[in-house]
Structure formats: structure tokens, C-alpha cells
């Protein structure tokens, strides 16, 4: 463990990082990713499928795929590096690979010390030019120390847009600030312990106790300028990851920033814009109100025209819902429609129900989106709804209240009783997930490896969040994949979980 302390520093200094590249690393990346075919038996996948974007390997379905990125492949496994593996592997010693032995392995399946690899590792009839390019790419893969992280500290940012709800924004910021304060309070002077461990030879698990530094990047002005603002912040004081964030109508520029800068962005409070997951680096908890509109459309089949109730202070949301409804074949009209679609927050929705008094011939579909519906919100609205539906991406009613009890207890202990528990719960969940991921990066700290760990680990982290069953996977970046659809009759509601149609 002690030697692991030198890992980040060593990654930058090892001689192979400075070796002049014979092959074309960029072309090698295409071979690795499968954008260019690697000559192989029919149907053999590209390297990335099993060894993953980080090249640091994978464990899935009982199959262990070893790391092949430069820092592991082109170094010997000896008794100094064996600590990266479980005790049972301590004495697996092999020489370092070079281009020739890598070529021999890919063609024959035999490693430089004569070990035949598992039959699930394909054999590739790779040519010399492709081999040189692939080798060049592997030497670089996961070899650069990522920004924003050292042996002792990690810097993270949270991002808000100018149109973020101020109450929710402040709740998120207060939760994060207190989480980081607590996290750092646990550090127990680990830097000092490391120095002592170096002298005495005792074991020190320093990585569990990095000091966190939290930046708040408050975007301002027109969304067209956000890209430059974000890039400037990252250039001035780089961060390792983005933890939580709050926005309004647009989040795509931030997702784009996460992808360009290769930053893991854990986003429990901003939806994914309704479409597919926006890339490898952004992890959203929910697809968004567009999914809820699609789910509502399935139960409003009889209605051709709908009336939209939306907050005039949030025109972008109304516009987004209106175009989603149009895509589903509805005509959005003023009054007189047979169905009402409401995206109002709970208090405004209840007030509107009281003034409009919809009769039993009008179906009211309420899509509260990111507004959590506890028992109080349900009881304030449903008796005013003779017939209708509620579509909520979060747990609702007593199930929600129970789920948020953990966060309420935490908030109370912090003296933050005024902070909405649903915002705090999701924020804490993302921060805890990031901390857990950081603590388990055995082979390296590249952002890709962190996300790959979360592909495995997210579903095992104790759920604080009001969203049910958080889980991602390779090619999955939306953690909760459906919403609760509740049918309202005579003030009672019957909930069914529905995934994307």
C-alpha cells in the first residue's frame, strides 16, 4: 500500500512516457475503440469492449479482464507491482511487454513468459503497422495523471446556471459545503501518517482520506458564453470531477464540457434533456420531463387536445413540455380541452385546481418533474382531482417520506432543517458515490476508470436519493430509467412503475 503513494508521481516520470512514438497513437486509438477494424476471427470485439475505455480492465460475469493500459502492460509484474492484485496473485510475475511480445500475444494468445491466455481473449491476425499504432496508443492510455487530484487532495466543482431555482441551488450548495467539511474532518492528518509510514514501513491507506476542495462555478450570461467560462475555470484551477449542479432550461453546454475535458460529472439534480444519455462522462439520475410526457401520453390516449398548466416564470420548461406534447400527437390549446397537463410545482398546482375546479369529465395529468411529492403534497392536491394521473420520477407519498428520513436526520444534525430533503438527499448521494469511487480506484485515477467503477458500484451504494434503483452500466448513463405513473380516482392513487416506452 505504501508504494501506491508514489503511483501518481511515477506515472508522470516513468521512461516509457517519454519514449518517442514509432506508431500513430491516434490511429491506434481508433483500432482500440473499434472505429477501425482489428483483423480477427469473425465477430471478435474491439479491445475497448472488455478492457474498457480506461484500459484498466474489468470484472464482469465471473470473467476478470486484466488491465492493459501503458502503466501496467509495459512494466513487469514483479513483487513490487504485485500489490495491485489480490494476495492470491502476489507471485504472478511476468516481464514487461514490448511491441514484439504484444504482437506475439495478440496473434497467438501466448504471453512473453509462455502463458496461454483465456480462450475468451480473441486472437488477432494483426499486421505490423496496426501493431505499431496500437502499441503507441496503449503506451499513452491512462498514463497521464488526471488534473485536479494529488496524493493528498482532490478538487471538485459544482456548477449552476443563472436560471437555476435559487432555493434548490442554495440547498445543494449548503449540503455540499457541509459534506466536504465533514469529509475533510475525517482526514485524520493522513499526509502526516504517510510521512510516518514511509519511515516506519507501516501500512497507510491514504487514498481513503484525500482532502476535498470544492469550487462553485456559477455560470452567468447567455448560454453561448458558458463554454468559454467553463474552459477558463478548468484552465485556471483544474478539477477532477463535477459533483452535482443545478440548471434550468439548458444543460447541454455543460455535458459537452464534461465530455471535452474528460471530467466525470455526477448530476443528480439536472435531467438528461429527455433524450439518450449525453455521452460517457455525464451521469444523470433521470432522463427528464420529456420521458414523463411520453409516459403520460400512453395514458392520455383518448385525448386529442390538451391544456397546459405551466409556471409563466419558467417559460423554457413550458416550451419544452409543449413541444414534447406536440411530438406525441397532441394539440395544445387554451381552455376547453378534454385533458389538462400540469407541470406546476405542488403549491401552484393545488391553487390552480381550486380555481379551475376540473369536473370528472376532465382528466388532469400532473407532471411535477423535479418537485418531490411527499404525503403532504399528495394530500393537498389529489382530493381536488376527480380523475387523472400523476407521473413522478421520484418515490411519492409515504414511501418518499420514509426514503428521505435519512437525509432529514443528517440535515437536522447539521442545523440545516430548512434545506429541502429531496435536494439534499440526491446531492449527498452523488457526493458519497464520488467518494466511494475515489476510494476504490485500485489501478489508477483516470476519469474513465472512475466511471467504469461506478458502472459496477452505483447500484450497491446505499440509496439516499428519492429516485428508485439507481444503476448505470457500460453505455448507460441515466441512473433511474423510468417514472411512477399513478392513476387518480376519487382522491386515491394507484402507482405503477413504468420505464421508457
Amino acid at each position, binding site marked *: 500500500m505504501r508504494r501506491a503513494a508514489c503511483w501518481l508521481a511515477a506515472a508522470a516520470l516513468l521512461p516509457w512516457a517519454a519514449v518517442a512514438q514509432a506508431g500513430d497513437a491516434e490511429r491506434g486509438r481508433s483500432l482500440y475503440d473499434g472505429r477501425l477494424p482489428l483483423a480477427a476471427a469473425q*465477430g471478435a*470485439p474491439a479491445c475497448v*469492449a*472488455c478492457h*474498457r475505455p480506461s484500459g484498466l*480492465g*474489468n*470484472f*464482469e*460475469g*465471473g*470473467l*476478470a*479482464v*486484466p488491465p492493459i493500459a501503458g502503466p501496467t502492460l509495459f512494466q513487469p509484474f514483479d513483487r513490487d507491482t504485485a500489490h495491485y*492484485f*489480490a*494476495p*492470491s*496473485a502476489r507471485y*504472478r510475475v511476468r516481464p514487461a511487454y514490448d511491441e514484439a511480445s504484444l504482437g506475439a500475444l495478440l496473434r497467438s494468445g501466448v504471453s512473453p513468459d*509462455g*502463458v*496461454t*491466455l*483465456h*480462450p*475468451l481473449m480473441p486472437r488477432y491476425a494483426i499486421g505490423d503497422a496496426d501493431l505499431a499504432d496500437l502499441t503507441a496508443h496503449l503506451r499513452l492510455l491512462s498514463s497521464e495523471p488526471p488534473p485536479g487530484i494529488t496524493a493528498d487532495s482532490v478538487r471538485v466543482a459544482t456548477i449552476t446556471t443563472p436560471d437555476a431555482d435559487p432555493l434548490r441551488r442554495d440547498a445543494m450548495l449548503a449540503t455540499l459545503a457541509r459534506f466536504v467539511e465533514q469529509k475533510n474532518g475525517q482526514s485524520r492528518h493522513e499526509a502526516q501518517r504517510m510521512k510516518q509510514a514511509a519511515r516506519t514501513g507501516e501500512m497507510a491507506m491514504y487514498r481513503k482520506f484525500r482532502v476535498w476542495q470544492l469550487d462553485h462555478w456559477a455560470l452567468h450570461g447567455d448560454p453561448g458564453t458558458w463554454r468559454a467560462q467553463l474552459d477558463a475555470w478548468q484552465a485556471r484551477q483544474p478539477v477532477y470531477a463535477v459533483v452535482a449542479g443545478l440548471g434550468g432550461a439548458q444543460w447541454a453546454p455543460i455535458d459537452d464540457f464534461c465530455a471535452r475535458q474528460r471530467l466525470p460529472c455526477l448530476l443528480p439534480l439536472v435531467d438528461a434533456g429527455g433524450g439518450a444519455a449525453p455521452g460517457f462522462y455525464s451521469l444523470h439520475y433521470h432522463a427528464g420531463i420529456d420521458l414523463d410526457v411520453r409516459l403520460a401520453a400512453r395514458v392520455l390516449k383518448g385525448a386529442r387536445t390538451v391544456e397546459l398548466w405551466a409556471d409563466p416564470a419558467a417559460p423554457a420548461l413550458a416550451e419544452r413540455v409543449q413541444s414534447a406534447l406536440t411530438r406525441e400527437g397532441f394539440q395544445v390549446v387554451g381552455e376547453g380541452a378534454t385533458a389538462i397537463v400540469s407541470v406546476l410545482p405542488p403549491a401552484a398546482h393545488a391553487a390552480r385546481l381550486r380555481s379551475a375546479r376540473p369536473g370528472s369529465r376532465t382528466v388532469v395529468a400532473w407532471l411535477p418533474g423535479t418537485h418531490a411529492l411527499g404525503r403532504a403534497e399528495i394530500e393537498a392536491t389529489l382530493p381536488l382531482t376527480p380523475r387523472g394521473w400523476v407521473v413522478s420520477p421520484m418515490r411519492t407519498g409515504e414511501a418518499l417520506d420514509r426514503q428521505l428520513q435519512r437525509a432529514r436526520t443528517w440535515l437536522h444534525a447539521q442545523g440545516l432543517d430548512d434545506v429541502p430533503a429531496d435536494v439534499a438527499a440526491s446531492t449527498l448521494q452523488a457526493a*458519497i458515490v464520488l467518494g*466511494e469511487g475515489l*476510494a*476504490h480506484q*485500485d489501478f489508477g485515477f483516470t476519469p474513465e476508470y472512475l466511471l467504469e467503477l461506478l*458502472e*459496477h*458500484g452505483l*447500484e*450497491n*451504494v*446505499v440509496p439516499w436519493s428519492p429516485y428508485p*434503483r439507481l*444503476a448505470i*452500466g*457500460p*453505455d*448507460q448513463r441515466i441512473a*433511474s*430509467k*423510468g417514472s411512477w405513473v399513478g392513476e387518480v380516482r376519487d382522491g386515491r392513487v394507484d402507482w405503477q*412503475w413504468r*420505464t*421508457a*416506452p
Partner: protein
Amino acid sequence: MLMALLLMRRRSLLVLGMGLIGTALRPMPARAAAAGEHLQVFRPQLAPLPSVALTTMQGQARLLDRELVADVPLVLNFIFTTCSSTCSVQTAMLAQVQHDLAARGRRVQLASITIDPDNDTPEQLRRFTQHFSIGAGWQFYTGRFDDLLRVQRHFDVYRGSKAAHPPVLLMRRHARAPWLRVEGFPAAGELVALIESLPAA
């Protein structure tokens, strides 16, 4: 929560280690021999099939205990469509087995049940199957999360997360015959041999 992740990582490292040791100590040149060494075959003690609602990849409603009762040999496995390696490997191998058995005029029923139903909608399952050459008599199923959890527990393949699912095949000669459980990655030829020698009682 810390323990959950810790356990996950320990488990993964342990198995990684075992894999490395295994290959280091026992060089295995032939593909079939290598696969055979990794294979465990035994008769599991299973209760009668529960009546669980499933949805086919065409979106039709089915019941587990009515679906897996053909009079031809059955091979059942568990997959998820965004699995990075093993599910595709197993599916490709089963496609080969189906093809080989058909070439000999043998019938077989194949059933693949997703362990990630929130993501694996019928449409997503159909997309997954397009990567393979899949013949008639092979259905892919999804369903409600809790229902499929019950199915996984029935067959003892639930390991806490989708990535940790074990590579398992469950087979029987017909609806009244005993189940055979195969753990590991058999080659297509090995599995064909196992299917042809399935016990009748």
C-alpha cells in the same frame, strides 16, 4: 455502503487474482481443454418453477412456468444488453450451438432472461439480438424488476449487481427431467455434447 463497495472490489480482485494464478500455473494450449478446466457441471436442487410474469421481446405477456415446459431440450441463461463482454460471448456461443444442433436435425429451446429490466425493454432486447444470428425457438424476456429478481433467486444467479452475475447456463432434457447447471464458459462443441447427454430422469 462502504462495505458494499469494498466487498464488491474485494470479490473482483480475488477472482482476478485467481484467474491470473490459474493461467500462470496451468498453461492450456487447446481451446476446448482450457474451457473444460473452467467448467463446473452439477444438478441443482430447484423448487418447481414459480408463476412469474414475463414479457417477450415482441412485447407479449408470458408466464415463466408455462413458457419453459417444451418437450425438447431447454437452455436458459441470464444476460443484460449493455454487458461489456461475457453476455455477448455467451450469446454468440449459444447461437453457434443452436446452429450446430439444427444442422443435425435436433430441436432445442433457448430462453434468455435479462437481469436489467429497467434498461432492457423489449425494443432494447430486439436490438441486442440483431448482433447475433438467432434462429427460431429462441426467446428473450424482460419483465418487472421484482419479478425478474424472483426468477434470478429461484435459479440462484442473483449476486447483488448485474456486473457480478455469474456465467451460468441451466438446462434440462424436457419439462419433467432434472435440471443441469453449467458454470463457466463452455465452447459450443462442449455444450452440444452436454445437451445431447442431458439426463431424462
